[in-house]
């Protein structure tokens, strides 16, 4: 520490200053400011805060951040600030000297000193090497071209973001976790991405062939090109990377190549200092190297023949290291690892040995349509490995059984269905499942936090998810254990849990269901009243809660509530769909997909008159006119109104279209008049506001040409009547409908449709489609309300029709007549004043 002499005439101070302050504590110098180095210091401080004077050298210009979270930064889900583990204040508060951007280049063990690149030399009593690992660069021609990078630190992320800003194509070499995360992030950032993987299965170290195939299929569905069994011959380009050539001769053009084939322990520094190094720096159970005064921890070490590349073992090592430095002799015994990951948003888990072999038996569950695959490998009645894809909820439980080597003979029949079934509950109660875990079961793999630690932290007063994250760090990194932590909160605190992320938005601590219930119970009548009575924390909400509140009030008070235009998304305020260039697209309603010469002429005239650059037939059987300016909308609507057409609500959380096939009037297979029924259905339902968009279809026979079984409400005509289907969706997650019931007349079909829509309007959360809503409440519940309760159904239908009596005014006609003209006209600057 530097001596400070102040020019000060107060004697006491001068005397204080003149006594040279000598820090007599042992000096611990840490080489590496990454996750392992800092965690080791954290563990040390927790045991004996004042014992060592600590200096940390970092090669990067940053404070300690969570390297695992670089992927969300790349994907745009988090910022660098979000992934900082220890901010500058942590170093200051603990008296740690942090020297960044200055890597250590030599260790002089005889003099017990280290020298950094800048020439700075520091003496140590104990040295901790935490240099982590280096990305492995495959030695192919062109590997040093500009535009070829690895994916290891913030600098790489910045390079990728720069490249993505100009678009184009990227190649990622390596189909392991890191490579797939890079590919996912670059895809989200708008690049066309090809992944080249040497092996036949993606993530072959974590996944078996079946799970790897599911992953590959899912990634391809998102637009990535995945080439497995592909060996890179060279990276070509003049002065910068232009593409990758494979050994089979294929060429993939790219302006960016990310090399993510693996990592190697960074041992060069230790090797040069003469320390014993094999694959990694050799350490004993207290992380001591071949030199008693030099320790090493993390990805750069080799312990008992093992090198680890995951965080959980690293936490174990840091604990043993800190114990050793503070004369506690626990010792590290190696780690059994499991991997629970979100790869590009897909849940993946694996643990133990799943390569099979003598005496190994597989228990497998496949549910291809849900994208779920589970495989548990059993040997001598004990779990030795597990691979889960799509549903990883039971990963922790299998891993716990594996680590404890428990005999599973008694629960073998139900083992694959998960803990809920196997422990006799019959149904899967997540709270019971987490309650049944033992105290040393790991909850958070990223931060190495056990159930016992989470529970202790909750019992000490952490009553919310955020509080748990802030205190013991569980769920603070990748977030895949958030559900487990929430269930632990519920199990420990019962009703007292302060639910964190499930609130409507950051403006309130209430959930959607709470708010809705209170709006009705307290007869609230406006958005400001809701915010006032329910203690909103913001003056006028946010873009998430305002549209929801507007809808809930609209639904609760048909005919009375004054719709708040400023709480509508732009499309619903402008009654047209905004496009990326700020123009709008206009879709007039075509009842049941039917049209006529007059309508088509009017549309053709509009297209010519307003120079619309494109007209497209939509999936909902109508025409979409693109490129209309906001100012022109009222005039366009006036022209369409004149031909008898009204708003198609293609822009709204509302009834979109009723798609039909031609039915018995023309089709030789048709059993009923599907077109006519479609028109009647659309006439009844158009104009209604809903929690989300709502699509209907009517097919004239079970061949189902109108695709009724992927609609929110689908009618399939049969000889003896009408099958009614609900909860279908053709979006990202395709979901086929559930059969609600069969009815015999058109009128019944219409009545059930109205009742179902009203139930959805009243009970689904804002922005929840029918598919997730039905998954949440169960189709049996819907049947109970619509099919089995005649009086209830009739009441729902009546409420719907009452609400419709206020909502079936064409919003276009009102605007065409001059209503809300200010929404379509700019202000006119009228005078210039100078001062």
């Amino acid at each position, binding site marked *: 520490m530097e001596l400070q002499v102040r020019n000060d005439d107060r004697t006491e101070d001068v005397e204080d200053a003149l006594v040279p302050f000598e820090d007599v504590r042992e000096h611990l110098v840490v080489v590496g400011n990454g996750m392992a180095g800092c965690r080791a210091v954290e563990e040390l401080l927790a045991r004996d805060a004042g014992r060592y004077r600590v200096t940390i050298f970092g090669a990067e210009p940053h404070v300690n951040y969570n390297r695992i979270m670089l992927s969300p930064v790349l994907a*745009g*889900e*988090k*910022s660098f600030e*979000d992934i900082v583990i220890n901010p500058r204040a942590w170093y200051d508060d603990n008296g740690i000297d942090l020297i960044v951007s200055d890597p250590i280049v030599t260790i002089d063990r005889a003099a017990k000193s280290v020298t950094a690149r800048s020439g700075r030399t520091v003496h140590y009593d104990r040295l901790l090497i935490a240099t982590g690992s280096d990305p492995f660069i495959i030695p192919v021609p062109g590997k040093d071209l500009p535009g070829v990078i690895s994916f290891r630190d913030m600098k790489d992320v910045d390079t990728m973001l720069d490249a993505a800003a100009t678009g184009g194509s990227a190649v990622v070499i390596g189909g392991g976790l890191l490579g797939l995360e890079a590919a996912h992030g670059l895809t989200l950032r708008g690049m066309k991405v090809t992944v080249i993987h040497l092996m036949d299965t993606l993530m072959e170290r974590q996944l078996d062939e079946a799970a790897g195939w599911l992953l590959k299929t899912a990634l391809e569905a998102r637009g990535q090109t995945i080439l497995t069994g592909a060996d890179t011959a060279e990276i070509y380009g003049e002065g910068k990377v232009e593409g990758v050539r494979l050994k089979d001769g294929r060429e993939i053009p790219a302006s960016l190549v990310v090399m993510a084939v693996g990592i190697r322990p960074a041992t060069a520094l230790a090797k040069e200092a003469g320390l014993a190094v094999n694959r990694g720096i050799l350490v004993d159970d207290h992380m001591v190297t071949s030199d008693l005064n030099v320790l090493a921890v993390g990805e750069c070490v080799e312990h008992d023949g093992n090198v680890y590349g995951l965080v959980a073992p690293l936490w174990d090592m840091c604990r043993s290291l800190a114990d050793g430095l503070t004369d506690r002799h626990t010792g590290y015994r190696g780690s059994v690892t499991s991997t629970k990951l979100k790869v590009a948003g897909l849940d993946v888990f694996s643990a133990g040995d799943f390569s099979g072999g003598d005496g190994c038996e597989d228990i497998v569950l496949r549910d291809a349509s849900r994208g779920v695959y589970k495989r548990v490998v059993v040997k001598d009645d004990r779990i030795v490995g597990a691979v889960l894809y799509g549903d990883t909820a039971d990963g922790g439980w299998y891993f716990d059984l594996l680590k404890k080597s428990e005999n599973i003979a008694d629960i073998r029949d139900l083992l694959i269905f998960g803990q809920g079934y196997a422990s006799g509950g019959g149904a899967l109660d997540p709270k019971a499942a987490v309650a049944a875990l033992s105290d040393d079961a790991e909850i958070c793999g990223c931060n190495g936090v056990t159930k016992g630690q989470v529970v202790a932290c909750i019992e000490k007063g952490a009553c919310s998810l955020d509080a748990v994250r802030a205190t013991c760090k569980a769920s603070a990194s990748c977030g895949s254990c958030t559900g487990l932590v929430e269930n632990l909160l519920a199990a420990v605190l019962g009703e007292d849990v302060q639910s964190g992320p499930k609130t409507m938005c950051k403006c309130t601590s209430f959930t959607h269901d709470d708010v809705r219930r209170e709006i009705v119970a307290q007869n609230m009548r406006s958005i400001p009243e809701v915010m006032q009575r329910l203690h909103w924390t*913001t*003056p*006028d*909400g*946010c*873009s998430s809660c*305002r*549209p929801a509140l507007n809808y809930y009030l609209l639904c609760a008070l048909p005919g009375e509530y004054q719709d708040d*235009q*400023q*709480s509508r*998304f*732009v499309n619903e*305020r*402008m009654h047209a769909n*905004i496009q*990326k260039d*700020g123009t709008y697209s206009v879709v007039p309603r075509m009842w049941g997909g039917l049209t006529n010469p007059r309508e088509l002429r009017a549309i053709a005239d509009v297209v010519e008159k307003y120079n619309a650059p494109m007209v497209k037939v939509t999936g909902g059987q109508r025409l979409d006119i693109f490129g209309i300016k906001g100012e022109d909308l009222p005039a366009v609507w006036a022209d369409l109104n004149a031909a008898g057409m009204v708003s198609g609500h293609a822009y709204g959380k509302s009834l979109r279209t009723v798609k039909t096939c031609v039915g018995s009037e023309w089709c030789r297979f048709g059993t009923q008049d599907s077109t006519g029924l479609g028109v009647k259905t659309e006439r009844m339902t158009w104009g209604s506001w809903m929690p989300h968009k709502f699509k209907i279809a009517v097919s004239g026979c079970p061949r189902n040409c109108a695709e009724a079984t992927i609609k929110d409400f689908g009618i399939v005509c049969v000889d003896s009547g009408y099958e009614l289907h609900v909860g279908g969706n053709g979006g990202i997650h395709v979901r086929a409908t559930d059969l609600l019931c069969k009815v015999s007349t058109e009128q019944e079909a219409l009545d059930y449709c109205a009742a179902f829509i009203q139930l959805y309007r009243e009970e689904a959360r804002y922005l929840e489609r029918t598919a997730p809503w039905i998954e949440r409440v169960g189709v049996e519940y819907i049947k109970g309300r619509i099919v089995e309760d005649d009086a209830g159904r009739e009441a729902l239908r009546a409420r719907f029709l009452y609400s419709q009596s206020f909502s079936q005014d064409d919003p276009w006609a009102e605007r065409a007549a001059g209503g809300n003209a*200010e929404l379509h006209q*700019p*202000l*006119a*600057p*009228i*005078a*210039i*004043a*100078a*001062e």
Partner: protein
Amino acid sequence: MTDWIDIGTLDDIPQRGARTVQLPGEKEIAIFRTGDDQLFALVNECPHKKGPLSQGIVHGHSVACPLHNWNIALKTGEAQGNDEGCTPTIAVRQDAGRILIARPATVRAAA
């Protein structure tokens, strides 16, 4: 000396809403009126993909871009939260019931 341009009255702009104004040779400007009747003016382009901010939901002293829901601080034009970018701001004031915006430099040079 700043040139000020009269663009209308407070009543011309809906509360928690915005209107636009087009000056010759300039990018379109969005004038925002917040829930507490303060006025702000920004270039009508989100720093992200140039979405028309005037069509966003105004909440507090921020606006959510209608295209991808970036939140932009009305006072500084800066993207909030995890997003980075900044939209140019234009000085705006009220005088005797009229809204005045500062004449942008390029217009002045051209005039």
